């Protein structure tokens, strides 16, 4: 059972006032705040262990390497993955997906092949595939969304066929909150001989994830959306897949032997981590993983689901407010997007900010979805472990104020 009041004590940033009100941070789908355990791990690393990793002989180099590599192990465990070598650290989810589209896509996707995506993808899971399609002459296919904001699985099934080379789907929509049946879609992809890529940027922070049970081939997510520092992303690949791929970036740390005209590559995962990585932030990410594991991802999910249900109940009583996405809290993560016409999302966010409530307004890097919904932007509140019912009530109070200004 999660007690947000206790948890909040670990988050120094939440102690402040914004515009004369206690800060209510409801922009967690963009990035979460960091507990002092993570901040201290970052400082401790620089104060006690900083050195460049791998190949170093001296004590600090060995210590830094051990700490960095230990987080690879923790990340694998977090995903219920058997092998730490199947984890590659990137800068963020976007870079992880670009790695797949480049290093796997360029070698395996050809003219006339098909790439299946959905209309609810974040731009990070659209643009790299568009670029791949432009390089290769492959075709993009988009699965639609039901009126309730769920992925149309029949349409997905219909789109996946013999020409499909890769299916890339978000595990959880950053706008609608919809949790997609990625295991089922992965099975469709497998039967068609296509690869299944899962954008886990929104799911890994909020749901228990078992990549092997999901049956996907690649799973990508970002540390900063799950209490960790910015600048660290994760790409997990099914056993053996990384070995079949050429490097994404070339340079230091990713080579075995360098000769004048050609080089040979280091073993996986180092083959995909060219140059000095973000060592300190990876080490601090280890503290974020520990924090979440101590709470238990099942408990995190239960807390955020209860909060989402409460938010949907509170928001539904606000006049003129309509919510996007699935009606049932168990079919969605802790993300609630809404409209309050005629108040524009930016006006809503400005008034909420006046109440100390941080929400996001805009297209949420999901312009295809905005177009599908027939809106230019939405307002979005998104939850984390430190949020409680009081936060939802503060949001509701701010939204009542929106109605007083614009109603």
């Amino acid at each position, binding site marked *: 059972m999660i007690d947000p009041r206790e948890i909040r004590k670990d988050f120094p940033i939440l102690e402040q006032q914004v515009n004369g009100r206690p800060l209510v941070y409801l922009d967690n789908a963009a990035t979460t705040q960091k507990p002092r355990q993570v901040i201290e791990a970052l400082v401790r690393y620089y104060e006690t262990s900083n050195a460049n990793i791998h190949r170093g002989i001296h004590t600090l180099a060995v210590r830094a390497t051990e700490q960095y590599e230990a987080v690879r192990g923790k990340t694998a465990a977090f995903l219920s993955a058997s092998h730490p070598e199947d984890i590659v650290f990137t800068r963020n989810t976007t870079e992880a997906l670009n790695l797949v589209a480049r290093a796997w896509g360029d070698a395996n996707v050809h003219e006339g092949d098909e790439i299946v995506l959905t209309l609810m993808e974040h731009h990070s899971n659209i643009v790299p595939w568009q670029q791949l399609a432009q390089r290769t002459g492959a075709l993009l296919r988009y699965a639609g969304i039901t009126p309730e904001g769920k992925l149309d699985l029949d349409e997905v099934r219909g789109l996946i066929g013999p020409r499909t080379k890769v299916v890339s789907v978000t595990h959880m929509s950053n706008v609608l909150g919809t949790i997609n049946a990625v295991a089922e879609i992965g099975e469709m992809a497998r039967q068609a001989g296509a690869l299944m890529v899962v954008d886990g940027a929104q799911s890994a922070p909020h749901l228990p994830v078992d990549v092997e049970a999901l049956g996907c081939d690649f799973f990508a997510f970002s540390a900063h959306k799950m209490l960790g520092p910015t600048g660290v992303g994760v790409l997990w690949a099914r056993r053996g897949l990384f070995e079949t791929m050429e490097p994404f970036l070339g340079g230091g740390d990713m080579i075995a032997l360098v000769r004048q005209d050609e080089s040979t590559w280091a073993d996986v995962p180092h083959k995909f981590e060219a140059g000095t990585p973000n060592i300190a932030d990876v080490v601090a990410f280890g503290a974020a993983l520990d924090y979440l594991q101590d709470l238990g991802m099942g408990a995190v999910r239960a807390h955020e689901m209860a909060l989402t249900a409460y938010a949907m109940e509170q928001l539904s009583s606000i006049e003129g407010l309509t919510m996007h996405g699935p009606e049932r809290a168990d079919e969605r993560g802790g993300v609630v997007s809404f409209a309050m016409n005629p108040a524009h999302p*930016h006006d809503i966010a*400005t008034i909420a900010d*006046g109440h100390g409530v941080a929400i996001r307004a*805009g297209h949420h890097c999901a312009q295809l979805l905005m177009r599908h919904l027939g809106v230019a932007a939405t307002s979005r509140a998104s939850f984390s472990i430190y949020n409680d019912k009081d936060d939802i009530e503060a949001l509701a109070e701010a939204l009542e104020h929106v109605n007083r200004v*614009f109603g």
Partner: protein
Amino acid sequence: MAVAEPQFDDLYREIILDHYRRPRNRGELATPSQRVEGVNPVCGDEIHLDLEIGDDTIRDVSYWGHGCSISQSSASMLTERLKGCSIEEAERVMGKVRAMLIDGAAPDDEIGDLQALEGVARLPVRVKCALLCWNVLKEGLQQATTAA
């Protein structure tokens, strides 16, 4: 003890809300000499301006688009203030509005209702909303001058 309700009277002045609810000069012109548009890619706000310029005068101006109350009311007030103005006057008003929004300069009566946007200058993230139509106008006036 209850905290006092935050105030938005300075930002969402009645004039702004009025122009947002009842936009003036909204729609296309039949025979515009200049048709210009601008989008704010960050927030998706969109403004189109139609200008009918002749004899160094803005004979008619209209706008359409979508976006927040600040971006849309700014455009509505722009059309109301500049319709029938000489280009020289329009440029002077534009300069004063930009100075108010960007530099926080005190507005004067020459800009009329647009003084209501003064409160926006305090919110850097919203300044671009109010400026959008003025950037579009600048392009339109440049086009007109080049064409002349």
